[in-house]
Structures are given as structure tokens and as C-alpha cells.
């Protein structure tokens, strides 16, 4: 018997699911407020906040002056005053003017206050490539934030996760860097509005397989699934894991999977040197060494600046590049 009162799942693009998640959090608490450039009347350049200012007013959905350091810095003060600010950074490449406020201030103030202060601030950043944009509009800055103790970092890759992780991030007593894979904003998925499937910091197996474990986050999850489907047609069974939470990392499902498959590949858009892929591969080698039949391999963007748009298709790993690594892992 199903609960007659439970709302039926709905289908939404990721951008609308994020919007719905924020809306629900704002309805539940009037301490939640949104701030950022162009998020009000325009609804953000990606329209993720569309309609929220009309419904919640200019004091809860604030079109700020154009100053990222001020957006994050004042969010810290607002949180000190009992608000739960959700900041939007317009594009990944424009988060750096706020870097000091995020890494040297926001991340450290709870520690410095010896627990007397909580900073429930969410910083939303549309990130990653595949939209053919100009410079600074498609970067992958996740490592800077995962490297900084005091920050939680997450990245949903489905509409359901977008909806629930947004609410969980807003509810978090800690600062959360919320990375939105912008090339996926328009991809639709089913949202179960009744209850979250997973906690904020869980990783998840999204496709079962037996030969190789393929781990990815953000937009690369979709590419990983593509690679897994191609591999299947060639007789290789690839298990795909969506990391979901970039810091902390939920190693349980990854280690379990590696113990079954004996092989692992990490795929990411960001440059590979000192990256999530490096960290996770090192940990897997430490904790599952005797299960491994091959070294953990990484597939990443090159260790160069994000190139001009006409070259992003070469820079960003595609299913072929992932399969090349899968084949190498299998060749051991």
C-alpha cells in the first residue's frame, strides 16, 4: 500500500529542481535568503532563481551590487545575525574575487570561534565546461575548495539530487560550496518530493558492473554512464559511481565496489594534477591495495588553463578517453 498523501514524483530540469529546492527551503524558514548578481528580476543568467524574487520579495532575494568578495563577506555577517544566506556566483571563473572570504574567512570562523559560531552559508557556483563559452565561463575550481578544511563541497548530477541536496545544503550548519554542473541545467529527471533518497554526503552507485569501477562527479557522471554503455557493447561491465559529495568523500560505496571489481578509473573535467581524482585514487590505493588488480587511473582535463571554446571538446574527457583508461586498467 502506498501512502495516499505522498505527493507523486514530478519531472523537472535540474535548473528548475534547484529552484524548487530553494523555494521549499525559503517557505520552511524565513531566515533563508538568496543573494547574488542578477538573481532577482532576471532570475539569474541561468534563470535558476527565476520567479523567487516575485514571490518572496526583494529582501529575501537580493540583487546585490557587483562584488563577489562583498557577496560572500556580507553573507558571513548575515549568518552571524542568524540568517541562512544562499549566495550565487554568476560563473565559476568569477568566484576568485571572493576567494579570501571563502577560504580564509568563511571556512575558518567556526574553528576560530571554538565552536561558538556556526556559519550556515551556501555558495552556489555554476561550474564546468561544455557550453562553448568564452574565458572564465567554464572552469572547474572544485579542488581549491575541497583543499580547504572547514568547507563542505557537493555537486548534484541529477534533478532529484539537485532538489534535495539544495535543501540539505541550506540546512547544513556548516558552509557548503554547492557546485552546479551548468551543462546539465536543462537535463530533465524525476524528482521525488516526498523524501530524500540519500544524505548530503553519500556517494551512490548509479550503474552496476563487475569489471571496472568508474567514479565521477558533476557533469562527468553523464559521460561516465555513456562510456559504461559503450563498454557494455564491447563486453566490459563498468560500475559507475556518482561521488555527489566532494568533501567529505563517502568512501564506503567506492571501496566496496573496488573490492568487487579490482579496478578503478576516476574521471573529471578539472586538471588532474593535485585534484579530486588524485586524492581519491591515493586513498583507494591505501585502503584497498590488496583488492586492486591495476593501479587506479585518472582521466582529466589537461594541466593547462581551460582552452578557448573551440578546443574544449579536446580538453574535456569524453567517453572515448574514459574507455581508453578503462582498457588500460583491464590490460594489467
Amino acid at each position, binding site marked *: 500500500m502506498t501512502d495516499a498523501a505522498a505527493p507523486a514524483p514530478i519531472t523537472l530540469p535540474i535548473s528548475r529542481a534547484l529552484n524548487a529546492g530553494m523555494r521549499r527551503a525559503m517557505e520552511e524558514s524565513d531566515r533563508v535568503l538568496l543573494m547574488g*548578481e*542578477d538573481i*532577482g*528580476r*532576471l*532570475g539569474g*543568467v541561468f534563470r535558476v532563481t527565476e520567479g523567487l524574487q516575485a514571490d518572496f520579495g526583494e529582501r529575501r532575494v537580493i*540583487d*546585490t*551590487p*557587483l*562584488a*563577489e*568578495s*562583498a557577496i560572500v563577506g556580507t553573507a558571513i555577517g548575515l549568518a552571524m545575525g542568524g540568517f541562512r544566506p544562499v549566495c550565487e556566483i554568476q560563473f565559476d*571563473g*568569477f568566484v*576568485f*574575487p571572493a576567494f579570501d572570504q571563502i577560504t580564509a574567512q568563511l571556512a575558518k570562523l567556526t574553528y576560530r570561534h571554538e565552536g561558538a559560531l556556526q556559519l550556515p552559508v551556501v555558495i552556489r557556483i555554476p561550474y564546468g565546461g561544455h557550453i*562553448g*563559452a*568564452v*574565458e*572564465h*565561463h567554464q572552469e572547474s575550481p572544485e579542488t581549491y575548495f575541497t583543499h580547504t578544511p572547514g568547507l563542505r563541497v557537493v555537486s548534484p548530477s541529477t534533478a532529484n539530487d539537485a532538489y534535495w541536496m539544495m535543501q540539505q545544503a541550506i540546512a547544513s550548519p556548516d558552509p557548503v560550496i554547492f557546485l552546479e554542473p551548468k551543462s546539465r541545467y536543462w537535463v530533465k529527471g524525476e524528482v521525488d518530493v516526498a523524501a530524500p533518497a540519500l544524505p548530503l554526503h553519500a556517494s551512490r552507485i548509479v550503474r552496476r558492473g563487475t569489471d571496472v569501477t568508474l567514479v565521477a562527479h558533476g557533469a562527468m557522471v553523464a559521460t561516465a554512464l555513456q562510456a559504461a554503455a559503450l563498454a557494455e557493447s564491447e563486453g566490459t561491465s563498468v560500475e559507475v559511481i556518482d561521488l555527489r559529495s566532494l568533501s567529505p568523500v563517502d568512501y564506503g560505496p567506492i571501496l566496496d565496489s573496488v573490492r568487487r571489481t579490482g579496478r578503478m578509473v576516476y574521471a573529471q573535467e578539472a586538471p588532474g*594534477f593535485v585534484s579530486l581524482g588524485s586524492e581519491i585514487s591515493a586513498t583507494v590505493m591505501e585502503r584497498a591495495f590488496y583488492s586492486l588488480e591495476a593501479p587506479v587511473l585518472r582521466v582529466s582535463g*589537461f*594541466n*593547462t*588553463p581551460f*582552452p*578557448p*571554446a*573551440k*578546443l*574544449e571538446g*579536446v*580538453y574535456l574527457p569524453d567517453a572515448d*578517453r574514459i574507455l*581508453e583508461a578503462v582498457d588500460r586498467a583491464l590490460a594489467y
Partner: protein
Amino acid sequence: MTPSEDPALVRVLAADGSLAHTAAAEPYLPIIEALSDADLERFYRDMAVIRAFDQQATNLQRQGQLALWPPSFGQEAAQVGSARAARPQDHLFPSYREHVVARIRGVDMLDIIRVMRGLTHGGWNPFDPKNGNTHLYTLVLGAQTLHATGLAMSMAFDGRCGTGDPERDEAVIVYYGDGASSQGDVHEAMVFAASYRTPEVFFLQNNQWAISVPVSTQSRTPLYRRGEGIGIPSIQVDGNDVLASYAVSRVALDEARAGEGPRAIEAMTYRMGAHTTSDDPTKYRTAEEEQSWALRDPIERMRLFLRGRGASDAFFADVEAEGRALADDVRVRTVALETLQTAQIFDNVYASPHPLVDEERAWLARYEASFEEGAS
């Protein structure tokens, strides 16, 4: 959002093309009176030709030839006036819509097109004399104001300004917008400029909007007054009046070059089109507002003025032909633009060899070759 006028505003040319100067314009009149017919026609030609180019670039974006286009539509007078006031030895730091500034200094418009087509992150070499010391477009708002200040500091430290020789003394002019003026970088640049008395002009184009956010959200005071608080003499000009824009820029640059320290100019103008081709201004501003500014169009104003002085039909026809020729040329050359070699990803990441980059370059070559083998 038609700003009430500050009594300090410098304007000489009224919207109907008549000479009707404000009180604040008085000291600038001699400069304008000294302009020749050729100078005046040059200003008009600069503005009208770039508008034709701008329209073509917008069309090219609509047809999928460019990833993005930031139009300069409406802001031609502020840009032409300021760029024409610079001397050859000056350095110019644009933000990202100063197309005519770049053109006046010699940059090939295709170099800008290549940036917006996704072929390059830079496009031209500021240190090549043919580019007239025009620095690269900067997309991170306000960042270039610090670079400009640093370069101006180098001029001051090396004694390349204030020698009394205006043919040799150098200055810097840096462009930014009303939205960018909220950035900490811009304030920090101004503090350094004032502290080190840089030969520098901060040229703020107040086009009333930062994407969807009106200037009233960025500032409760006229923006030019911010410079005063930091110790930089500042002035507000009608940025849709090319003559006034030229005159105030001329004076500010001359003073900066002469070693009198930085100056700031707020040019009151209007972004008549969309912020970029990705933007839809009907979501945040009214048709009435747009129309009220259309009546103050900088090119039309200058056209009426020149007409009144007896400029010939042949002159206007010639300008139109030049605009069309530039637009056609840009279209032909854009469509024919080169594709990139994949290995270019690895070029110039570092100035000297780097093992990781070399390793990846070699890996990509092998990887691509493996497909060719497979195909043959």
C-alpha cells in the same frame, strides 16, 4: 532610469545637434573650438563605422558564428572621444566592449572576433606597435584597473611622465563599467593610483545597467564622486557627446601625462542594446526608458551637428560605404577563420619547458594517432 542631471556634467552638444554647453563645460570650450573639420568628421566616421561593425558582429553571433557578442551600440561617443584623446605612446586597458577604442588604436577587428568565436583567450599582442598599446580584453570585472595602475606606476617610477615633453610623456587610460565600479579591485586600484600619483585616467562608462541591475544598486552617489573621496580629481561628462568626451579625456590625459597624478571620468551613456547576445533586456527595463535614450543617440547627435555645419551628402555616403565595407570584410573573414590545432592547448601555458605539459602534449599526439591508425 533617466538620471537627473548633475550640475557638474560637462556637455557641449545637445541632443538636437546644436552647440549648447553646460556651465561645467566652459573650461573645455577652447579645446573643442580648436578642432578642425577633419577632426570632427573623423569622430563621426569612427562612431558610424563601428556601429555597422557591431551590428554585423551581432548578426554573426545570431547565425552561430560567434559564441557571444558584447555590443558597443550606444556607447560610441564615450569610446571615440576618449580614444582619440590618447597619444600614440599612451597605453589603453579596455574591459570587453571597447571595440572602437581598439580599432582607433589599430587592432584588427578580426582579433576581437576570434576571442568571441572561441579561438583564443587573447587575440592580439599589445606590445606589437600595430596595436597601439591596446591591452587585451578582460572579462573578470575590474581586474584590469589594477594592471593599468601597475603599468602607470612603472611609468612614474621610470620617469616616463612629467618630464615636460608631451611628445614623450606617457599615460594610461583604463575602461570599466558602472557595475564593475563596485568591485574591490577598482577601489584598490584607485587607492594605489592616488598614493603613487600614477599618470592614469580611470574611464568609467556608466551605461546605466550591469546586466539586469541598475546603477542605483551600485551607488547612491554619482559615481564620479567616488574618485574624489580617494583623492583623485574626477569629472562627469555626457558620454553621448563625443566632443565633450574628447575634451575632458584630453585634459585628464594631458594632466596625467604631465605628472599631476591620476584623474577619473564618469561618462554618462546608455547601453542601447542587450548586455550581450545572451541577454534579454526586456526582462528588466522598459521600452520608455530605451526610447528616451534613443533620442539622445550619440551618432545622430553628431550627424545633425555636422549637417548644420554643412557637411556634404558625399561625406555621409562615404562613411556609410566604409561601414558597409568593414562589415562585409568582417563577415567574409570570420566565416573563413582558421580552425585550431589540438596541440595548441599546450602552447604558452608556461614561458619555459614544463615536463607535465610536455608529457600531456605527447600523450594527446599518441592518442589521436591511435584513432588514425584505427581508421586506416
